[in-house]
Each structure stands twice: as structure tokens, then as C-alpha cells.
């Protein structure tokens, strides 16, 4: 259900794997929303990108947990204690199904946690589903109405 929209959604993706980033791109295309994608390869870069995009009110952050440098956990924690950023939904995407990781992320304020499936079509479906949810079902903190309601 492609919807036209004046200003595209701002999507910040923290992902160090090119393959996984490519899969996100595929899902974004398939989901069909007008999205401006910003990619960072580490959690630290992700924070920088997010701060830079703060005036554009980013719609969603997709956060990989295990990146080099400042990793996704630290970036998540930093976002959720930053008054300017903490309202931005952060969805964690990780290979880890370890209850410790899951517990940590929710405790740090993650808005959702998804385990990346190895099976490619499953992986794409998870991403399309979550993009669709956040971009057409959820009410975002910016107060702007989601695509569905327009």
C-alpha cells in the first residue's frame, strides 16, 4: 500500500553488515513508504547521525546490537537518556536470542526487539512487518498522523 507523503519518513539504521543492510533496504522498498534512509555502521556513528537528524524528527531507529566501536547497547542507552532523542522509537534487530540481551534492551528503553532469522524470506518479512507497523499503525511521538490515517 504505497502512500505518497509530503515529507519522507526518516529512518536511521545502525548496521555493520552490508548484507543485512541490503536486506533492510529490500524490505524498505517492499514496504513502499516514502523513506529517507540514513545508515551508520557503528552505534557511535548512529548517535551522530541521529543527533544530526534530530531537527527532522527521525521516525524510527533500527539498531543492530553487536557493532564494532560503541555498540548498539551503548547507543541505545545513550538515546534513551538523551532528552532530545529519547522519544524516537528504537527497534533492536539482533542475531542474539539470549534472554540477557533481550532483558537489557527493554530495560534500557528499547521499543521492540526482533531476532533476525537466518532464512532470508523470513528476515525480509520481519522487516516489512515492523516497518509497516511503525509507519502505518503506530502513532508516532511527533504527533503527526501516520500514513494510514491520512
Amino acid at each position: 500500500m504505497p502512500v505518497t507523503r509530503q515529507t519522507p519518513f526518516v529512518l536511521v539504521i545502525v548496521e555493520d553488515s552490508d548484507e543485512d543492510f541490503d536486506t533492510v533496504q529490500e524490505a524498505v522498498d517492499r514496504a513502499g513508504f516514502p523513506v529517507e534512509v540514513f545508515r551508520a555502521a557503528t552505534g557511535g556513528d548512529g548517535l551522530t547521525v541521529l543527533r544530526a537528524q534530530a531537527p527532522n524528527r527521525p521516525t524510527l531507529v533500527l539498531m543492530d546490537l553487536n557493532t564494532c566501536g560503541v555498540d548498539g547497547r551503548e547507543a541505545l542507552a545513550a538515546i534513551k537518556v538523551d532528552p532530545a532523542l529519547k522519544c524516537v522509537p528504537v527497534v533492536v534487530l539482533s542475531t542474539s536470542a539470549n534472554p540477557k540481551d533481550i532483558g537489557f534492551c527493554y530495560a534500557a528503553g528499547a521499543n521492540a526487539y526482533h531476532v533476525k532469522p537466518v532464512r532470508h524470506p523470513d528476515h525480509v518479512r520481519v522487516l516489512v512487518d515492523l516497518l509497516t507497523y511503525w509507519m502505518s499503525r503506530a502513532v508516532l511521538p511527533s504527533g503527526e498522523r501516520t500514513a494510514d490515517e491520512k
Partner: protein
Amino acid sequence: MIRTTPVRPTPWDGQPYSIKRHGVTITNCDSEPVQTPGCVQAHGAMLVLRPADLTVLQASENTDRLLGHRADTLLNKSVQVAIGSDGEARLKAFFATEPTDRNPLYAFTLPPRNDVPPLDVTAHTVDGVAVVEFEATGRTEAGEPDYYALVKKTVTRLQSAKTLQQFCDLTSDEFRTLTGLDRVVIYKFHADGHGEVFAESKRADLDPWLGLHYPAGDIPEPAREVFKQIWVRPTPDVAGELAELVPLTNPDTGRPLTMTHCALRGASVMYTEYLENMKVTAGLTMPIRRDGELWGLIACHHYAGPKHVPYQVRAACEFLAQVVSLQYQAAEEREHLVYRLKLDGTHQQLLAQAARDGGLASMTEGRPSLLDGMAAGGAALYHHDRWWRVGTTPSEAQLDALGEWLNDRPEFASPTRPLYATDSLAQQCPPAAAFTDVASGLVAVPLSRLNRNWMLWFRPETIQTVNWGGNPHEKPTVPGPHGPRLTPRRSFELFQESVRGRSLPWLAVELDAVARLRMLVMELVVSRAERLADLNADLTHSNEQLDAFNYVASHDLKEPLRGIHKYAHQLLEDAVIVDQDHRRKLSGLMRLALRMDSLLDSLLHFSRVGRVALVTEWTDLNEVVAESIEMVDARRSEGPPEIVVPRPLPHALCDRVWCREIFVNLLSNALKYNDKPQKRVEVGFIAPDEDHSRSGCPEGSAGHTIYYMRDNGIGIPARHFEQIFKMFKRLHGRDDYGGGTGAGLTIVQKLIERHHGRVWLDSTVAEGTTFYFTLQGRVGT
């Protein structure tokens, strides 16, 4: 006995003391002037001479009987009047050549005159006067035994003694042979002054005194002082007369004569009364001295009337007493060495045992125990937050209070030897008065300062353990001729007073051994703690590595897998690839990636099963099985199996979640490896009191409930019974029987092991398999 100060006024105050005049007024042993009694024993006579001209200054009042001249007629005369010119000449020569100061020596024998038998003359000098004593020689027509040979033989025998006891036994025998008296006891003084009959040789018909204890006051302080100075003390006739010196004091100095070294010294009234109370008629006493201290006495008693032991025999006794004193020390050192070796040997055993058993508990529970390493009534150890007791000890509550009290003892501040020992605990720690019967004596060493760990030994009150001389329960109170002075009853009461709340003292050799044991235990504890710390560090390290490995497995391995799957998928989607063979290979690539993924998941799960803490609680297994059936059914697509629970399962102490996984895994296997049209599974149990034999239960499972799950599946050949529990071991093709990673039973086994249980099976190919297991969960996590 109550000690008095010397300034206390005495009944004879202002006049010279004489036993004959003042003895009956004495009520207190320690105030009796035993060294200046003013009297001699009347079987002999004494002259006190001015050394310069041998003029008689004092004479015993019985000189008329023994020397043929009344005392008063001898005063201020030359000694020649009493002993003749020959005697005078010999005496003069004697004093000129012999070392006579405070050293009575035999001078010569005065020949018989009239009806007086020959007399041995001994002489010494003291305080500027010459003291000459006259006694019957005791020689008979038969001649003298060879005292030298006798003593030499005795010394040789004593040297062969292996223990102190043996040494003292021999000593008492030898002295009895030498003196011919009825009883010889070796009287040993304890540190608190009380005495014990340590060895005895006696006439067969006499009651034994061996092992009896006597209060310190039975041998008063002044008497002990005398025995530090002389080597022999004869009392040939306990009931014999006394002869007073005339005059009582030296006319030149006005002082009474010091009779310490006189063989004839008049016996203390307290002493003779005491002997009379024991029906002793004659006595001879020698000291056993060590480093100038009085260790004990060799007391010879006679019961058949007066018994004069002549100078010659006394000299032999004196010499023997000196030999005994020297040899005694060697014997005691030998014995202490033997005791020390025994203590150390036992302590080494204790330590080896503790090291082997991995805990100090064996020191109180094992053989040998702390009690074998010490002559004590009980021992206790505070270790791992509890008391470990052996033998007779105070209660745990009392020990707790004692531990608190010990914490403040200054002795434990010593960095080199933190050791506290007492033989009268209640005096220092008043609450201990409640248990003097078991712990009047205490030795305590700390095993650590901070954790308040202790090693303690207890000794009971002496009164509980010793036989005392003259049991008052057997004898009525007998007042002596001078009132209730040294009667057995009085003696016992005094004794009780002196040993109330006291234990036998701890020997230096025992305390040294305790100090050494403490060091050894500390070393053991420290080395164990270090080893434990090392193991913990290793464990933490390997857990961390395992965690790291889990991340490698879950993330770093899976990420490329996702990439591989993705590219294969994309290629397959791509219309360019039309070759069926290529397409088949791409499908295979994707399938392998997914298989790798599930193997990694199993591995991760298995490692979690091994490390996650169990939360054990009493769990209704019927509910667990119902949940498991639901979970397994949900995965199933084929016709409904028959799952039977013949009788309700009991509650079990287990982790509910993990226990469910056990049932889920077993149940799904039972259904998966089953080719029967009607699949059947039975879930049941064998109670601890039921016949376990059918299950083939392994050792250690008896006495526990055995759970089982029986299916009518394909069965497992016996040779595979062990393999099936191995990680990723599959007995069948990868995709047969619904596939799977081959981790299920490995996880089941791990979960059951985590519940301290066992799992085993019984199977017949084509008929079915029964899995048995026990759950021996422990309360808590």
C-alpha cells in the same frame, strides 16, 4: 592452707620458740618456724659449739642419757668433757679439713661407754656455730651391707627406665629395699601445688595410695623450703620424745639455732600429727629436685613402731635422691619427647585426613579426632559458621558465648603465638562457672581472626577426675589431738577449695603442639582457600569464555549464514539461472545454512541448560506432563497418539520449566521415532518403596522415585544406549523421522544431572523404548 604474713604476732612472740612449749598452740602450718624448732628428736643428742675453741654453747637436755653428762654441766665447758680428748682431737681435725658449712658429714664413731652403745658423730657449721649430732650407729654383729654396690646397682636399673612412670616405680622399689620401711611413695607436685602419689612400693597388706591426690596444704610451704636445702629428713620415731636445747638460744648471739640441716631436727607438730593420723610410726623423706625447684618427694613410711635408719643408710639414700633428681629430669625429657612425638604424629594424621576429606569437619568426626591429639575431656571447632564437637564439651549456646568472650582476649593479638590456655577458666570468665565440670581448663587457638573460627580443647574440673587421699565419704571426721587440724576431713575440704573450678594444668609440650597444629591447620585452610579462589577464578574465566563463545556462535557465525542464505535465495529468485542442477545446488546451499542455524541454536540452548540456575520447588508433575502433551501435540500434524498416565504422578522437587523440557523432549522422541499406526506412550513412576528391579536402576537411584516414559516406537539397539545421549548424534538419516539436530537427549541428560538425578533406558527394537529417570532436586536455587 591460708598463708599469713610474717609480721603476724605469734603466741610465742617475744620468747624463743620450742615445739615442746608452743607446738600445741599452732593452728597454721605456714607460720610454724620449722627451721628453728628449739628441740631435737630425743633418740639422739646434740651439742652446739663455738668453733674457735669448741666450747659447748648449747646442749640437748638428754645428753645425760647419751653422753653421760647433764646438759647444764656441759655448758661453757670444752667438748672434751663430753667426748673425751680423743674425740675432741678428731673433731678439731674434722672441722679443719672438711667442707662442713651447712653440710652435715660423718666425723667418727664414738666408742661404747658404760651402757651407751656406740654413737655416730656427724657435724656441720651454720651461722657461725658448730653443730655436733650423736646417734646410735645401728650397726649389728653381722656387719654392714655394701652400700656402694647397692647404690651402683640401683643407678644402673634407673637408667634403663623407658618412661617416667617406670622410673618412679623403680625408684620406690629401690628405696624400700634400701631402707626396709613398709611403704615408699613418690609424691609428685602439680603446678597448683597439690600432690599426687605417682608411684608406690608397699608391704602387701597395706592399702594402696597410688593415684591419690592431696591438697597443697598437706605439705606446707616451710616444709617445702626445707626440702630445697636438704637431701634427707629422718623421723625414726613419730611418737618419740623431743629434747629441748639448753639454753634455747645461743648465749653469744641470742639467736635460736637454725636446724635446717640437722638430722635430729625436731619434727614439726603438724607433720607428726599428720603422720599419726595416717598411723605412720616412722618416716624418712627425700626430695626430688629439679633446677632448684621441688618436683616431688620420696616419702618412706613405717607402720610397725619406731625405725631408726642409721647414718650410713641415710647417706646412701641421700646420694640416691640426688641421682634420682638428675635422672628424673632426663626421664621426664625423654617422656615429653615421646609425648610430643605422639601429639605431633596424631596432629599430622588429623591434617592429612582433613586435607583428604576436604574439610576440617573430619577433625571432630573422624578417627583420630582432635581429642586423640590431646589429653582433654572434649574438643570443639568453630568452622563454616557452626560448632563441631567431640567428647564432653559445653553446649553450643555456651560455646557461642565463650567464642564471644575469647574474641577480646589480648593473647590473640600476638602475631607469633595467639594461644590462650587456662586451668581455671571460670576465674577469668565468670559465665564459665556454669560448666566447670566439663571445662575448667581451656586451650583456645584462633584459626582466623576475622571469621572468628576457633579450635578449643576442654579439661574437666580436677575434682571430677582425681582420687583424693582419705575419702571423707568413707571416714568420719576425726579431730586430731589438737583439734581439727590436719585430719582427713579437713584435708579434703581444703583440697576441694584449692581445686574448685580448676583443671589439671596444660603441659608446655601440649601447648607447643597446639601452636604447631594451629599453624598447620592455617596453612591447610589458606591453601584450600587459595585453591578454591583459583578454581573460582578459572570457573569465572571459563564462564566468561563460554559467554564469549555463545556470542560468537549466535552472532558472528549466524551473520554470515544469513548472508549465504540471502545470496542463494536471491540467485534462485533471479530468472537468469534456469539450469535445474544449479537451482538444486542453490537450494542445497540454503538448506545447509538453515541446518547450521538450528545446530547453533541447539548448542546455545545446551550451554544455557548447563549454566542457568535452577529454581527448585515442589511441583505437581501431573500438570507438567499435561503442559508437555499440549506443547508436543501443538507441533504434531498426524493422527492423535494414545498418551496414558496409569496413576497420578507425585509432586517432585524440581525446576518446573526445565522439568517440562525433559518431558517435552522425551515425549516428542517417543512420538517421532514411532512407526506404529496407533502410537502409544505411558508416563508413570515407581515409588521408593516399590520394586525397582525391573527398571535396571543404576547405583544411587535406590530410595528415590523413578519416573518412566514407555513408548511402542521403533526401539533402540542396546549398543546405542550410550551414543544416543551424545551431542548431535543421530541414529537415523538427517531427514528421517522428522529430522532434528540430535541434541534433545543430550539436553534431557544434562537437565536430569542438574537435578542430581540419573537417566537410563531399556529398549527392544521394533517393540519400544522405556526411558527411566530420577529427580533429586534440592530446595532452593
